[in-house]
């Protein structure tokens, strides 16, 4: 479940990159100030403290895929407004705004690519698009990702970053959890590899569907990963949560992820995993 209008006021990193010389960015971890160029150069990882800052889907492509190239699938699958949802601002208006702000057609992009020469089916949630929330379009695209990967005998690499199911499509959003996991089940029956990458933040209905069901689950350092949002837990239990709760290191300690992988090593780690599981 996701905040409809509280998508963080983050400029897509790709835009920051084009801001030019002389612009400074403060690290969310240690407060150190970096030039935008240096920050972008280090894939938004702080050179002083190692904090990983959000990265746009375009940068994820550049980080992981050969030539940064993704042959996209199903970009034409577009949202409707099945409930006629309006809470003072209409869902349609929110969708339009999300397209404008994120530069993406919906909250996930999927397609075919190569990773160090290996053919892969690839997907990445688009957090700046309504918090990466899963409605019908996300569910359909992720489902088709697994179906096509099954047909084309490709492994699936899916980068998760989502607040959960999209409230504005009601129960249809919840049903996407069953739909995507059903597609994963069929894909898995054919003994294809699924590597789940967990990025800050991955919560709610997306965390509780494909995100933790990878053959291997990789997490970025410091990512928030959990079912219930921390504020929900705090208000339910009337308590404050311990430092580091629901962060990647916490999940590693509790046996929920296999590895915490710094951004700089993500591509080589994925390549090594695929060559073990699929053969060299």
């Amino acid at each position: 479940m996701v905040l409809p209008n509280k998508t963080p006021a983050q400029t897509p990193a790709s835009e920051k990159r084009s801001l030019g010389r002389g612009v400074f960015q403060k690290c969310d971890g240690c407060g150190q100030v970096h030039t935008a160029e240096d920050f972008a150069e280090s894939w938004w990882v702080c050179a002083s403290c190692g904090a990983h800052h959000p990265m746009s889907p375009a940068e994820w492509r550049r980080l992981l895929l050969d030539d940064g190239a993704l042959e996209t699938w199903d970009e034409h699958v577009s949202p409707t407004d099945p409930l006629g949802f309006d809470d003072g601002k209409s869902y349609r208006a929110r969708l339009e705004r999300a397209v404008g702000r994120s530069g993406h057609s919906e909250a996930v992009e999927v397609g075919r690519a190569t990773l160090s020469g290996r053919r892969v089916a690839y997907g990445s949630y688009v957090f700046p698009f309504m918090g990466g929330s899963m409605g019908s379009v996300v569910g359909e695209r992720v489902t088709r990702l697994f179906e096509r990967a099954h047909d084309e005998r490709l492994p699936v690499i899916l980068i998760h970053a989502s607040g959960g199911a999209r409230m504005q499509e009601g129960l249809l959003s919840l049903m996407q959890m069953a739909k995507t996991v059903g597609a994963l089940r069929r894909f898995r029956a054919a003994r294809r590899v699924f590597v789940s990458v967990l990025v800050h933040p991955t919560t709610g209905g997306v965390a509780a569907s494909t995100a933790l069901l990878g053959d291997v689950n990789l997490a970025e350092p410091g990512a928030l990963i959990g079912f219930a949002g921390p504020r929900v837990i705090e208000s339910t239990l009337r308590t404050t949560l311990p430092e580091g709760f629901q962060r990647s290191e916490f999940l590693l300690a509790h046996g929920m992820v296999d590895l915490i992988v710094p951004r700089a090593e993500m591509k080589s780690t994925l390549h090594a995993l695929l060559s073990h599981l699929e053969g060299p």
Partner: protein
Amino acid sequence: MNHVLAFERPVVELVKRVAELRELAREDARLSAELKRLEEKAAKAAREVFARLTPMQKVQLSRHPNRPYTLDYVHRLFDDFIELRGDRRFADDASIVGGLGRYHGRSVVVVGHQKGRSTKENMVRNFGMPNPEGYRKAIRLYELADRFGLPVVTFIDTPGAFPGIEAEERGQSEAIGSSLEVMSRLGVPIVTTIIGEGGSGGALALGVANRVLILEFSYYSVISPEGCAAILWKDGTRAPEAAERLRITAPELLDLGCVDAIVEEPPGGAHQDHDEAARRLDRALYEALMSLGGLDAEALREDRYSRFRRLGSFVA
């Protein structure tokens, strides 16, 4: 029966008078005409009041403290029920019950959320909000069903999965996700009924079925109306508006294709007559299981996949 919602008061009073008169009519046959008249009047009043219920009033009924819970149906619908407990990993979560029972002569596996009737029982049942071990118990029972070729019957009635520190430590997300995956791959028929509250992912974890039934005054939603109102308007008291916008009532969910059939409740709601509610559910459940009788394991998996595969609204 001391919990009466404001809008159901006139109906409840009539239902009570019918019950009293029925007792008297047992002794005195001359009262049978009067009984019939009063029964009709009560049914009509119930129809009128209940036809105009707002979505939030239906949510209140779904949470009614006298509403039949999973075990109330289990004891009425299944013979020789044997409860099986524990996830074999950590604990037994009493907010989900499961076991073996005989349904119309055929052994089945039953799994359902279980709320408590009293405060004390609710401490044990955690108000029907499972921890990961609850879902892992369910998974264990699904796999047992699959191994022995037994149909699975599940009952959904939860405000949601428990949002707790330990739930997160033990992998609430993974437990729910795995439950979805295991239900997807079972080679036996699965029929689910939402008997009360269908609260989000914690409900769906028991709901990946070939047929999904819903009781007339149950709801099933991606988020609670209160939670939705708190997010949209920072005001939980606007839950009734959220309940309208989310389209969470049985007829609306039937229109969206999310449920396959609605089970009508007795006049005044399932809590007025547990036996009659169970009889009505029985008919729908029997029909649903029969409709799946001819399918082999692979056909059942594909039937389930295509049922969920077509859900969603998009342009392509």
